[in-house]
């Protein structure tokens, strides 16, 4: 085969392999899970802080919305990135995923609810969703700390 054909094939193989990130070992996967949880904590707590400050009458309504929209989008992308990583074929990795995924899901849907309730100016919905999200954020934070975050 000519040199350029070999190079072309190698590049194609590389490109295809990037479609799903390679399965890391347990330690790397755990570390990835921990950093994902940390990022999710940051976005959730941002949404919570903004909502609480708005409820105290200290935040402009026009400011709250972009903050919540950004947090919502960031949470979505954090979850997508984590899910795109192929977990190693161990039960430990599966347990990690089983614990983290629902938490990420819960956080994302809570922030979406916050965004909608904020737009509709529903103070009671904001309060109840906030307290739920606060619990989720705390559990995410504990997860991150337990797994090396």
């Amino acid at each position, binding site marked *: 085969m000519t040199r350029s054909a070999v190079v072309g094939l190698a590049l194609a193989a590389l490109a295809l392999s990037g479609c799903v990130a390679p399965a890391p070992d347990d330690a790397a996967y755990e570390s990835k899970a921990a950093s994902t949880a940390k990022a999710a904590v*940051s976005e959730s707590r*941002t949404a*919570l802080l903004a909502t609480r400050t708005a409820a105290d*009458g*200290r935040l402009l309504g026009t400011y709250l919305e*972009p903050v919540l929209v950004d947090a919502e989008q960031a949470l979505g992308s954090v979850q997508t990135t984590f899910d795109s990583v192929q977990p190693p074929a161990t039960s430990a990795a599966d347990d990690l995923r089983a614990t983290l995924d629902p938490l990420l899901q819960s956080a994302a849907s809570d922030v979406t609810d916050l965004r909608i309730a904020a737009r509709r100016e529903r103070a009671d919905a904001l309060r109840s969703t906030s307290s739920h999200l606060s619990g989720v954020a705390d559990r995410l934070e504990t997860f991150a700390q337990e797994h090396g*975050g």
Partner: protein
Amino acid sequence: MKRLLSVFLGVLTAIGGFVDIGDLVANSLAGARFGLSLVWVTLLGVVGICLFAEMSGRVAAVTHRGTFDLVRERLGPRAGLLNLVASVLVTVLTFTAEIGGVALALELATSVNYLLFVPVVGFAVWLVIWRMRFEVLENVFGLLGLALVVFAVALWKLNPAWGDLLHAIVVPHKPASEDLSTYLYYGVALFGAAMTPYEVFFFSSGAVEERWTAKDIPTSRINVFIGFPLGGLLSVAIAACAALVLMPQGIEVGTLGQVGLPVAVAVGKLGLAVAILGFFAATFGAALETGLSTGYSIAQYFGWQWGKFVRPQQAARFHVVVLLALIASIAGVLTTADPIKVTEYSIVFSAVALPLTYFPILVVANDPVYMGEHVNGRLSNVLGTVFLGVILVVAVAAIPLMLLTAAGQ
């Protein structure tokens, strides 16, 4: 009395004009993640920019020539061209970040998506450069930038333990959960944010725009040595607010909205509105400066007529270059690349380009043929050489650190 007022105005403008999107993002990000353990880098950067801004202002006042004019003359066309290309690329990247910053500030004020503001912002930037007189441009946006003092107010209202704060600044302690390489990477970013290259081109070209002579050197020194450090203190206040409000919550800064949250918590709606005004003024002012600096650099290298002190007709190529840079920056923002990420890259690449910018100024400021009796004194030279060493270390370390930490992950 009038003279005193004009000096006072100059200092205020220097304070308000000090912070740009790079400083806003870098200081808030570092404060939220590293507490006050990187403030020493900001302070170091402030000393550096004071040193080199004073030199470049003095050079312009004595020679009546802009930086790049002298860079090509002193270093030759080849080294000068390398310098020009690197500086223009970094400045246009910064220009893109600033325009993104203006749009983000408007998004926070109106809830309207920032991308929709970009064409309007671009047009406004161009219009101000086209029509507004240089002194008016500097003064208006410099004074409006003083709105960022609200961060100092917020810090005061947060009522921190001042002794602990000071201790954390003076005895930096990297948080245990962070790697040394990430700590150093953000140190590089903070340094690049404080010592942006375009600042020096703008300052020296501005001195020529305003027709400075050797008599204006003392005023320039007051502006630089009082105004810039106070502006630097604003950067520290931004970091401290993030450290006190965001860090305990585990919030990491990735949006401009997060940068302003501590002000809302501490001061409320009015403070937040002032902060948004500050964001707008700082980024819009910096957009004007980076746009003009692109024009200054290129025109000065080739010897074209440049500046706002002549009619646009007399400086056609200069204005076209600014317009092209603006179009490129608008296009850059409209790619929907995250403006905060663009900002982070712009400050790291600024750090890489720093030696190219500052070495020629040190050389020219030392040359008695250009400077006559105003040549660098012993202190300026010693400090300047020491800083050049620091700048070289930072520039060499920047890209490896960026790769090692995956841009700060």
